[in-house]
C-alpha cells in the first residue's frame, strides 16, 4: 500500500472529499453537454440524471470512504508497530553485550521466581487430592502446659468425639505400623495402616482398581481384606490387574487384596506416626468395647466437617467437649485439650516457612534485578541523547517517542520473560529431586498456569519500567537544550537512588544468607551424642505374630552372628535409630521422689536396645553397666537412663539402684543399672527429652535397626551383614540400609539446602549491587570527563581524582549498608524459627555483610576511578 494514498497532506474530511469529487464530475459532464449544444439548465439536468440518485450516491461514497480510512489507520498502526519493533531490535542489536546482560539479569530474576513460585504453588497452594478437601480437618490432643500442640489421640477420646461431636459429618482414626508381606517374592517390610470404618468414604478418593474397604469388612467375623498402594502394586505385581482377588500373607495371616489406590494414595502427608512411612497396605480396624476405657494415645484422626461448619466453630465445640471428657476421665485427660487443624494447614506446617523464605529471597533478587536494569537503561539514555534530539527535530512527538521506547522495553522484557520461563522450568527440574520429602511438590512438578500468569505480570511491569523511564526522560528534554546540566544532575540523582535501593535490598539478602550460613555451621558443629563416622545401619523385623521366645532367640542370633563378622568391632540393635524420624515417647517418674501431677510428668524417649548398641554408637557409659545376659526375659526389670534423666531426679547423686516407673505397657518399677550420655534422638537442633533404654530381651520388640561399628568402610560390611541375617532366618525383610553419617547429614539436609539456595541468591544480589555501583561510577566519570581534565590541568593529583570517584561510591555503599542492616534486623525476626545458635543481630553475620559489601563496592568503583585518573588534561579540553 503506497504511503502516498495515506499521506495526511492531501486528506480532507470525508464529506468534503466526496462532495468535491462528485461536483467535479457533474461540472465536467455539464460542460461537455453544453459543448454538444444543450442549454445550461438542460445540460445540468441531464448530467444529474446520468449520475443516478445523488443523495444515495453521496451516502454510499461516504460510507465506502470511511471504511477505507479505518482500514488505512489500522494498516498504519501495524506498519508503525512493526517499524518500531524493527527499530527496537536494531537498537538492542547495536550493543549486543549491553542488551544481553540486561536480558540475562532480568531473566535470572524471573527464572528464580518462576521456579520458586511453581514450587510454592504446588506445595502450599494446591489442595490435597481429596474431594472438597477444604472440609477435611485433622484432630489432635494437645498439652498446652508442655507446649505440645499436636499429639496423637486416645481411642477412648476418639470414640467420644465420634459419638458426641456435632460439627463433623464423619470421623476416621488410623494407626500405621510395620508389617511383613510374604508371597509372590522376597519378604517385604510394608507400612500397614489400620483404619476405622468409613476411612475411604471420608476422604472420597476412588480406588484405581477393585473396591475400597466397606462397612462389611469391619464386622467381627468378616474375612481379612486389604487395599494396597499404587507403589506396592507396581513393585510387587508390575501393575497386573489380576492382583485384585489375590490372597497374600501379611505377618502370617492370609488376607485378600480387594482394591488398589491411585498414585498419591491416601497418604495425606500424614505419614507422621512413631513408625514412619506412607502406607502401602490399608486394613480394617474394628473398635472393641474395651477401648472405651482410656489407656494410651496412639491414633491419628481425620474428620470431614459437617456442611456449613467452620473449623473455628468445630474448635469451639471441641473445647466444650474437652471439659466434659476431663470430668469423665479426670486422671487421663487432666492437662489435655483437643485441637482442630485444617488438613491443608497441617500439610503445609513444616514446609511453609522454608518455602516462603525461598520465595522472599527470589522476590528480593528480582527487585534488585529490576532496579539494576532500570539503572543501566537510565545511564544509557545519556548515550541516546543525540538520536532522540534528531528524531524530535524530524517531528516525532512525545507520544511517538514514548511508544518507541515502550516497544523497546516490551521487546527486552518479553525476551527476558521467555528466557526466564525456560531457565525457571529447567531449574525446577534440577531442584525437585534435591528437595526433602515434605518440601517436594505433591504432584508432578512443572511450570503451571499460575507461574505463566506471574511471568506475564512481571514482563508487563518490566516493560512499563523499561519503556516509561527513558520515555519520561526523553519527553522532559526539549530538543533545543538536550544537554541541559539540570537534566543530567537529576538523572544522576535518580540513578544513585536506584543503585542505593538495589544495594540496600542486597544487604538484606546478604544478612539473611549470613545468618543461615552461621546456623548451618552451628548445626554441623552439634555433637549429636554419638559417633557418626564408621557406623552402618540396617533394619529388619519379625512378623507381628512371632511369639516372644522366637523374637528373643532370633535377634540374639542376629546380633551375635553379625558381631562375629570380620571387620565388625561392635554390633547392637535399637528400636529407633537416632535422627532417623520420630520415635515413641512416654511419661515416667522416679520411684523414690514425689509423683508429679500427670500434666507435669516429664516425657522420655523410650528405646529398646540389644547387644553392644551403646559401644557401637560411641555413646559413653557414664555410670554403672550396660545391659548383658543377666537381663533376660524372666530376670528383674532393669533400665538404662541418660544423663539428663539422672540429673533431673537425682542431681549430684548416683542413679544406680534407683527405681523408675515408665508408662510403657505395665507400670512395674524398673531398676536403673546404668547411665549413658544424652543423644539427640529426634532433633539435631535440640536435646528435646530425657531418654530411657530398655533391654530387648525384656521387651521383645519385633522390628529393630542393627547398628554395626566397622571403621571407615562400615557401609562395605552391609552385604556380609545381609547374608548373615538371611542365614539366621531367610523370611526376614531387610530395609533402610544407611550410614549414620548419612542419617545425620539428612537431619540437617533441609537447612543446608535452604542455606545454599539463599546464599546463591545473596551472591547474585552482591554481584548485581556491585554492577550497579560500577555503572553509576562509570556514568559519573563519563559525565565529568571535562571537569576532571580541567581539574588535572589546574594541578589536581591522580590520587585526588581517584578519591573523588571513590568517595561518592563509598558514601552510597555506606548509606545502603546502614539502611539495609536496619531492614535486615527488622526482618530477621521472621527468620528466627529457621535460625540455630545465632540471633538476628549476630555480629559475625553483620560483620561479614559489611565486609563483603564494602569490598564489592570499592572493587566495582575502582575501574572507573582508574579510568578517571587516566584522563589527559589536554584531551579533556579537546572534547566538544
Amino acid at each position: 500500500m503506497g504511503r502516498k494514498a495515506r499521506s495526511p497532506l492531501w486528506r480532507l474530511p470525508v464529506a468534503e472529499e466526496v462532495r468535491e469529487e462528485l461536483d467535479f464530475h457533474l461540472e465536467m459532464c455539464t460542460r461537455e453537454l453544453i459543448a454538444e449544444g444543450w442549454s445550461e439548465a438542460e445540460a445540468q439536468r441531464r448530467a444529474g440524471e446520468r449520475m443516478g440518485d445523488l443523495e444515495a450516491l453521496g451516502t454510499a461514497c461516504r460510507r465506502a470512504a470511511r471504511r477505507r480510512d479505518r482500514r488505512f489507520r489500522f494498516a498504519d498502526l501495524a506498519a508503525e508497530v512493526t517499524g518500531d519493533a524493527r527499530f527496537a531490535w536494531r537498537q538492542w542489536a547495536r550493543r549486543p553485550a549491553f542488551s544481553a546482560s540486561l536480558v540475562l539479569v532480568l531473566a535470572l530474576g524471573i527464572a528464580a521466581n518462576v521456579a520458586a513460585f511453581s514450587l510454592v504453588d504446588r506445595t502450599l497452594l494446591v489442595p490435597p487430592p481429596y474431594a472438597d478437601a477444604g472440609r477435611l480437618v485433622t484432630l489432635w490432643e494437645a498439652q498446652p502446659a508442655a507446649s505440645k500442640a499436636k499429639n496423637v489421640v486416645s481411642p477412648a477420646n476418639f470414640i467420644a468425639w465420634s459419638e458426641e461431636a456435632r460439627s463433623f459429618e464423619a470421623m476416621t482414626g488410623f494407626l500405621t505400623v510395620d508389617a511383613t508381606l510374604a508371597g509372590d517374592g522376597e519378604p517385604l517390610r510394608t507400612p500397614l495402616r489400620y483404619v476405622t470404618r468409613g476411612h475411604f468414604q471420608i476422604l472420597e478418593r476412588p480406588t484405581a482398581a477393585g473396591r475400597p474397604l466397606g462397612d462389611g469388612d469391619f464386622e467381627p467375623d468378616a474375612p481379612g481384606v486389604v487395599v494396597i498402594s499404587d507403589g506396592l502394586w507396581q513393585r510387587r505385581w508390575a501393575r497386573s490387574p489380576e492382583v485384585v482377588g489375590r490372597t497374600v500373607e501379611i505377618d502370617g495371616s492370609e488376607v485378600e487384596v480387594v482394591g488398589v489406590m491411585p498414585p498419591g494414595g491416601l497418604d495425606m502427608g500424614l505419614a507422621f506416626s512413631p513408625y514412619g512411612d506412607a502406607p502401602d497396605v490399608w486394613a480394617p480396624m474394628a473398635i472393641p468395647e474395651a477401648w472405651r476405657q482410656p489407656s494410651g494415645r496412639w491414633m491419628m484422626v481425620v474428620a470431614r466437617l459437617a456442611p456449613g461448619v467452620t473449623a473455628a466453630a468445630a474448635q469451639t465445640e471441641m473445647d466444650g467437649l474437652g471439659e466434659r471428657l476431663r470430668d469423665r476421665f479426670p486422671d487421663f485427660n487432666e492437662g489435655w485439650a483437643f485441637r482442630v487443624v485444617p488438613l491443608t494447614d497441617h500439610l503445609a506446617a513444616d514446609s511453609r516457612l522454608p518455602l516462603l523464605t525461598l520465595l522472599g529471597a527470589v522476590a528480593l533478587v528480582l527487585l534488585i534485578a529490576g532496579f539494576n536494569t532500570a539503572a543501566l537503561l537510565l545511564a544509557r539514555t545519556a548515550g541516546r541523547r543525540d538520536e532522540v534530539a534528531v528524531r524530535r527535530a524530524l517531528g516525532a512527538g512525545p507520544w511517538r517517542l514514548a511508544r518507541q521506547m515502550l516497544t523497546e522495553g516490551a521487546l527486552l522484557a518479553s525476551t527476558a520473560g521467555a528466557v526466564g520461563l525456560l531457565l525457571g522450568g529447567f531449574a525446577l527440574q534440577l531442584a525437585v529431586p534435591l528437595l526433602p520429602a515434605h518440601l517436594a511438590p505433591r504432584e508432578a512438578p512443572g511450570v503451571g498456569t499460575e507461574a505463566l500468569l506471574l511471568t506475564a505480570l512481571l514482563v508487563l511491569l518490566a516493560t512499563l519500567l523499561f519503556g516509561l523511564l527513558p520515555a519520561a526522560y526523553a519527553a522532559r528534554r526539549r530538543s533545543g537544550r538536550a544537554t541541559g546540566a539540570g537534566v543530567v544532575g537529576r538523572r544522576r540523582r535518580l540513578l544513585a537512588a536506584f543503585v542505593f535501593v538495589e544495594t540496600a535490598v542486597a544487604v538484606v539478602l546478604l544478612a539473611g544468607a549470613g545468618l543461615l550460613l552461621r546456623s548451618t555451621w552451628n548445626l554441623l558443629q552439634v555433637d549429636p551424642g554419638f559417633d557418626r563416622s564408621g557406623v552402618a545401619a540396617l533394619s529388619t523385623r519379625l512378623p507381628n505374630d512371632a511369639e516372644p521366645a522366637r523374637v528373643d532367640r532370633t535377634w540374639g542370633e542376629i546380633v551375635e552372628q553379625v558381631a562375629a563378622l570380620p571387620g565388625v568391632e561392635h554390633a547392637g540393635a535399637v528400636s529407633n535409630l537416632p535422627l532417623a524420624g520420630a520415635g515413641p515417647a512416654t511419661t515416667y517418674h522416679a520411684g523414690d521422689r514425689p509423683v508429679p501431677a500427670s500434666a507435669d510428668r516429664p516425657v522420655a524417649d523410650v528405646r529398646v536396645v540389644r547387644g553392644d548398641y551403646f559401644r557401637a554408637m560411641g555413646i559413653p557409659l557414664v555410670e554403672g553397666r550396660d545391659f548383658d545376659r543377666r537381663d533376660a526375659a524372666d530376670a528383674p526389670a532393669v533400665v538404662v537412663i541418660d544423663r539428663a534423666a539422672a540429673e533431673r531426679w537425682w542431681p549430684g547423686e548416683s542413679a544406680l539402684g534407683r527405681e523408675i516407673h515408665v508408662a510403657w505397657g505395665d507400670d512395674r518399677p524398673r531398676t536403673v543399672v546404668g547411665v549413658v550420655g544424652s543423644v539427640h534422638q529426634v532433633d539435631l537442633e535440640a536435646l528435646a527429652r530425657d531418654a530411657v533404654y530398655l533391654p530387648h530381651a525384656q521387651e521383645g520388640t519385633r522390628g529393630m535397626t542393627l547398628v554395626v561399628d566397622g571403621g571407615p568402610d562400615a557401609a562395605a560390611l552391609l552385604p556380609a551383614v545381609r547374608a548373615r541375617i538371611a542365614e539366621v532366618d531367610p523370611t526376614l525383610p531387610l530395609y533402610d540400609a544407611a550410614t549414620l553419617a548419612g542419617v545425620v547429614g539428612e537431619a540437617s539436609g533441609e537447612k543446608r539446602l535452604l542455606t545454599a539456595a539463599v546464599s546463591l541468591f545473596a551472591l547474585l544480589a552482591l554481584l548485581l549491587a556491585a554492577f550497579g555501583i560500577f555503572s553509576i561510577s562509570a556514568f559519573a566519570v563519563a559525565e565529568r570527563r571535562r571537569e576532571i581534565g580541567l581539574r588535572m590541568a589546574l594541578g589536581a593529583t591522580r590520587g585526588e581524582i581517584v578519591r573523588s570517584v571513590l568517595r561518592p561510591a563509598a558514601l552510597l555503599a555506606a548509606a545502603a549498608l546502614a539502611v539495609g542492616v536496619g531492614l535486615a534486623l527488622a526482618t530477621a525476626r521472621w527468620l528466627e524459627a529457621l535460625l540455630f545458635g545465632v540471633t538476628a543481630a549476630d555480629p559475625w553475620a553483620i560483620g561479614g555483610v559489611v565486609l563483603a559489601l564494602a569490598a564489592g563496592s570499592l572493587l566495582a568503583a575502582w575501574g572507573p576511578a582508574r579510568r578517571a585518573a587516566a584522563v589527559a588534561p589536554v584531551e579533556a579540553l579537546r572534547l566538544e
Partner: protein
Amino acid sequence: MPDDHKDLIRGTLDPLILKTLSARPLHGYGIARFLEQESGDALSIEEGSLYPALYRLQSKGWIEAEWGRSELGRRAKFYSLTAAGRGHLERETERWRAFSRAVSTILLAEA
C-alpha cells in the same frame, strides 16, 4: 434506463476500472468517459456507481488517489494503479479469459 442486455455482469466493474488506470492516472470522470468510449456504448455504466467502487478499490490497496489539476486547471482527484492493483488485474484478466472461453465453447457450438 439501459436495456437489460447492456448491464454489467456482477463483479466486472472492478477489473474494468483497473484496466482503465493501467495506462495512466485518471480522475473519476475520465474513467467514466473512457469506459463509455472504449466499449462503443455497448456497456452502460451508471456513472454514479463508479465512485463507491473507487473507494473500495482504494481500501483494498489496488489503486491510490492524489489531488491534482485537471486539464482545465480545476482541482481533481486522480487515481492510479498500484503494483498490487496491477497484479490483481493480471489475475482477473486471466480468469476472464478462461471463463469467456468456456462460455463461448458452449454457447457458440454448432447444435
